[in-house]
C-alpha cells in the first residue's frame, strides 16, 4: 500500500494521521505541500528519521523544486512523476489529503 500525503505537516494533522495507520514496509510518497515534511533541519526531521527505520519515504522532486527545497532529510528518496507511476505499479494507493 502506497500512502501519498499532499498537506504540509505544519498546517494540518494529515501527516500525523497517516503515519498512525502505516504498516511496516509500506512506502510514503510526499507530494505538493506535503514535501515540506522532508526539508532538512526542520522540526519533522526526527519523525522522518524514525519512519525511515521501518518504511521507505519518497518525495516528488518537482514539488520540492517548486518550493525551493534543496536539502532533504537523509534517506528520503526524491523521485519524478515517472517514479510516482513506478510506485503505483507496485502498490495499491491510499491518498491522504
Amino acid at each position, binding site marked *: 500500500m502506497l500512502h501519498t500525503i499532499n498537506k504540509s505537516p505544519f498546517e494540518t494533522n494529515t501527516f500525523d494521521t497517516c503515519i498512525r495507520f502505516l504498516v511496516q514496509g509500506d512506502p510514503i510518497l510526499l*507530494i505538493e505541500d506535503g514535501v515540506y515534511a522532508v526539508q532538512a533541519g526542520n522540526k519533522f526531521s526526527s519523525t522522518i528519521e524514525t519512519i525511515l527505520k521501518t518504511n521507505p519515504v519518497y518525495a516528488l522532486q518537482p514539488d520540492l523544486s517548486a518550493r525551493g527545497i534543496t536539502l532533504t532529510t537523509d534517506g528520503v528518496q526524491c523521485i*519524478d512523476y515517472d517514479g510516482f*507511476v513506478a510506485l503505483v505499479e507496485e502498490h495499491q494507493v491510499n491518498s491522504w489529503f
Partner: protein
Amino acid sequence: MKIGILLKEGPYNHQASDTAFKFAEAAIAKGHTVDAVFLYNDGVTNVTKLMDPPQDDRNISGRWSELSQKHGVEILACIAASKRRGINDDVLVQGSSITGLGTLTDIAIRNDRLVTFGD
C-alpha cells in the same frame, strides 16, 4: 496496467488537478492505459470550456480535452456534483461528459489501480 483517476478539486485553486494531470501524462508515457479521470466534488469544474486563464498560464480544461482526444482517456464529471456547481452539457469541453457515480464504481472495479487526487 490500467489506471483510473479520481479528482476531487477544481482547477487553479488547488494543485490536485495539476498533479493528477502530470501523473496521467507520466503513466501514459510509461505505456500504461489511463482509462478514465472521474471528477467529483468541486473537481467537476475542471471541464468547463468557459475558463479563460491568462495567456501565459495553462488552460486546464483544454489540456484535459487534449488528453482525452490524444489518448482516449475518458474525462467524466459526476452528474449530482455537476448540477450543484453549474456544470452541464452546454459548458463541457470537448472529450468530456457527465455521468453517474455508478460509472465511478465500474472504473474502480475494472482498473488495476484507482488513484485519488484531492485537497
